[in-house]
């Protein structure tokens, strides 16, 4: 990756295209966070490629002054994989919505995760189909009334985090559109990861699903209703001073305890380890009921595995080292005869 002459600022990542999201849409905050993080990370414009599917969120590339490819519904990870295999040096980001990447694109997502292609995936989860004007999505809660479920949805929603863990993801995190600083820090963290990094971002669609996350993201309840996972630290949370924590019961399910009560000492609390040998603890947090427990944000999982494109190239290099063959030799093959 060549470096730009002078480090670019956040503004340098803004394209000249009018941003076309509804006023108040959570997508604005995410765009802002990405531009901030990219500037912080010293990225340049010409090595950066942003690939999206279809959805409100997927218009993202148009607003970024980098290379961008707005592909077709659900297929961004596949196109991005091709880009990486063609040129592993490129810095490739995938932008997708809950419908785009979990409904029509679910298969490409899980295969990308298992292969560990060096892609950074931002999943804008607004628990609704925005662009098509308000049908329920695979992350919409049961009972939700939408245009296509006038009597309420009967589908059990996916947890994108648990699905990713099940697929063998090496880096999985979660943030929120309006948690500006946290969001920037997560984008920076995933940038450092070698392999596929999937960040679920809770995003408010104020037109078709307004307030979907308000129950735990609103300022007044935020501290009580979310818990930030920090590597090496216990899962403490609670509004100022109220030292609550999440730990795991005998059945490996998360439970809330209060530090200092019922014999719970802070020192005894398990330290969060996103790089643990087993993804079980991350799975436990990812599947905890949203209404009964504080919602975890931060890094669920962060482990190392070789990148797919590196292995592809390594294999090619090895093959090249092992066998040099001219085009002529290739065309000729092993068995020939001559006429004339």
């Amino acid at each position, binding site marked *: 990756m060549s470096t730009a002459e002078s480090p670019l600022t956040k503004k340098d990542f803004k394209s000249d295209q009018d941003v076309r999201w509804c006023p108040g849409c959570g997508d604005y905050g995410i765009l802002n966070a990405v531009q901030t993080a990219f500037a912080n990370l010293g990225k340049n414009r010409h090595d950066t490629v942003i690939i999206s599917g279809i959805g409100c969120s997927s218009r993202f590339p148009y607003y970024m002054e980098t290379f961008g*490819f707005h592909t077709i519904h659900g297929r961004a990870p596949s196109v991005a994989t*091709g880009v990486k295999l*063609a040129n592993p040096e490129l810095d490739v980001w995938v932008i997708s919505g809950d419908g785009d990447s979990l409904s029509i694109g679910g298969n490409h997502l899980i295969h990308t995760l298992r292969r560990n292609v060096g892609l950074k995936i931002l999943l804008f989860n607004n628990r609704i189909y925005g662009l098509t004007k308000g049908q329920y999505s695979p992350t919409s809660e049961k009972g939700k009334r939408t245009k296509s479920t006038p009597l309420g949805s009967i589908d059990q929603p996916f947890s994108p985090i648990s699905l990713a863990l099940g697929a063998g993801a090496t880096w999985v995190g979660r943030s929120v559109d309006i948690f500006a600083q946290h969001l920037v820090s997560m984008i920076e963290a995933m940038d450092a990861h070698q392999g596929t990094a999937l960040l679920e971002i809770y995003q408010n669609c104020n037109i078709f699903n307004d307030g979907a996350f308000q129950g735990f993201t609103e300022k007044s309840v935020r501290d009580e209703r979310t818990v930030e996972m920090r590597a090496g630290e216990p899962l403490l949370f609670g509004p100022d001073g109220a030292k609550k924590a999440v730990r795991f019961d005998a059945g490996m399910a998360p439970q809330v305890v209060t530090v200092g009560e019922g014999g719970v000492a802070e020192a005894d609390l398990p330290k969060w380890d996103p790089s643990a040998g087993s993804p079980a603890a991350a799975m436990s947090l990812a599947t905890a009921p949203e209404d009964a427990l504080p919602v975890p944000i931060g890094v669920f999982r962060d482990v190392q595995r070789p990148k797919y494109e590196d292995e592809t190239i390594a294999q090619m290099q090895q093959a*090249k080292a092992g066998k*040099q063959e001219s085009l002529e030799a290739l065309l000729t093959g092993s068995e*020939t*005869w001559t*006429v004339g």
Partner: protein
Amino acid sequence: MTDTEPTTREFTELDQIVIRFAGDSGDGMQLTGDQLTRTTAIMGNDIATFPDFPAEIRAPAGTIPGVSAFQLRFSNFDIHTPGDDPDVLVAMNPAALKVHVGALKKNGVLIVNTASFKATDLKKAKYESNPLEDGSLDGYRLIEVDLTKLTRETLEDSPLDTRSKDRCKNMFALGILYWLFHRDMQPSIDAIRAKFAKKPDVVDANLKVLQAGYHFADISGIFQSSYKVAPASFMQPGTYRNLMGNQGLCLGLVAAAKQAGLQLMLGSYPITPASDILHQLSTYKHHGVVTFQAEDEIAAVCAAIGASYAGNLGITSTSGPGIALKSEAIGLAVMAELPLVVIDVQRAGPSTGMPTKTEQADLLQAMFGRNGECPLPIVCARTPGDAFEAGYEAVRIATKYMVPVMVLSDGYVANGSEPWRIPDEADLPKIEVEYAEERTDGGEFHPYLRDPETLARPWAVPGTEGLHHRIGGLEKADVTGHISYDPKNHEHMVRTRAEKVERIAADIPAADVLGETSGDVLLIGWGGTTGAITAATLRLQKAGHKVSAMCLRYLNPLPRNVETMLRSFKTVLVPELNCGQLAMLLRAKFLVDARPFTKVQGLPFSSQELEDGVMEALNRLNANGGEA
């Protein structure tokens, strides 16, 4: 020459021979056929082969659905098909006999393995009585050999178990044929040695049985005469190899990519009969080829599109059902105006159809199987060797015009083989690819500013400074590439994408004409029927009929001489293995009464069928006083 060459042998000199092997899927018929083919090719005969696979799932041993066959025709003259009816049939079991004996020429040589004509075997093939005994084979020169017993005897001392020994019996049959047709055994000996290098016992056994078969034929006197076919003399001087269709396509693609200086990236998902393209290209990693077996066809084509976007030559290969799945993404490539090669090795449809059988019924899917007005160039492979050029041309057109190109092959071309004159690298057409150049002036880059001649947009590869821009599947303004809902711009872009494809007509050769440029009957075909059409036309011409043929490699746009030719014959017949797809395109475009001549049986045309069809048309013409 090996030590098995006998000193003297009665022989008959022939111009050509057609041999068919038929046996159970497990009997190694394809392998045996392949050995004989290589040997024969190396000995300088012209050859053509037709492997006929059973359904892709194993049938119970000895039953009709399990029969696998391989036909080889070799000659001292220029041939175009593997021949209609064989001179020699090797039938390894009753089922094979039942399926194939009907095709054997009258008085033809019929070699059967008597070991597998027990009552249970006959029952599996649903024979009421033993054909070896009931006189039903009287019209043939029946040679009964207990291959199993002879093989076992030969291998008495071998450490192999009985099952493995029995597997060698096809080598006994091969040995017999090598004697019968004066074939050199050395290439096969080398091949067997290489193939089983890690299993010396298997090598020993196979070679022993091969030679035993040869000696048996020599000594037993079961044949009155042996046969010789002199090397083909008509062939253009040069170095030749034997080439299968899928292989030819791969070589064409790699050669073109190398000429263009591009890395080739294949995104594919296995499917019969296209899988061998994935297999073959994955052995070319040392040529900088990247292969990606995706989770499905959609991911495969999308990865290829991504690779092309990033400056590689993206390729994707599949068969008809896979094309159906890829059609939405191909539309994206048309809209994004990216080079891409999409290969459809057609098989018998619709739906899952008959996966191991050939057909040409995806032409209209290739033309129209996408939403909206979404034209793309189409080339096809006419013979195994022609597949090389089809692949090569597809790359040339895709990169020059920034457009996805469809390559139509079919099961018959893909698995068939023929001698191929290895081209000189220097003779390969140049393919000049230029990426858009980096710019540091800070000005806006215009991704849809077109080359005035080709209408191609620049290939602006990520990683190039100053070229950052956004593209996608929404309609875009010409020049700037920004999203545009402007009605006039849409019309302009739709017509421009069509025009870009149309302009390719000036950049491809006129179609080859076999015969005069006017006359009574014109046969116009495409792809895998080329061999049969050529053979039939030559025979009809020899018989003095005013028949010409035109076998297209370029299907969209059509070569510039098609229209004149169509208008210069009293009758136009369009032989196709479908219900009349090219015929429809020709009729619509030229308002010419091009008549479909079709067959939809999962089998290629025999040249006889075509001759009959033309004769009928000629008779009709004569009956009408020379008017169509």
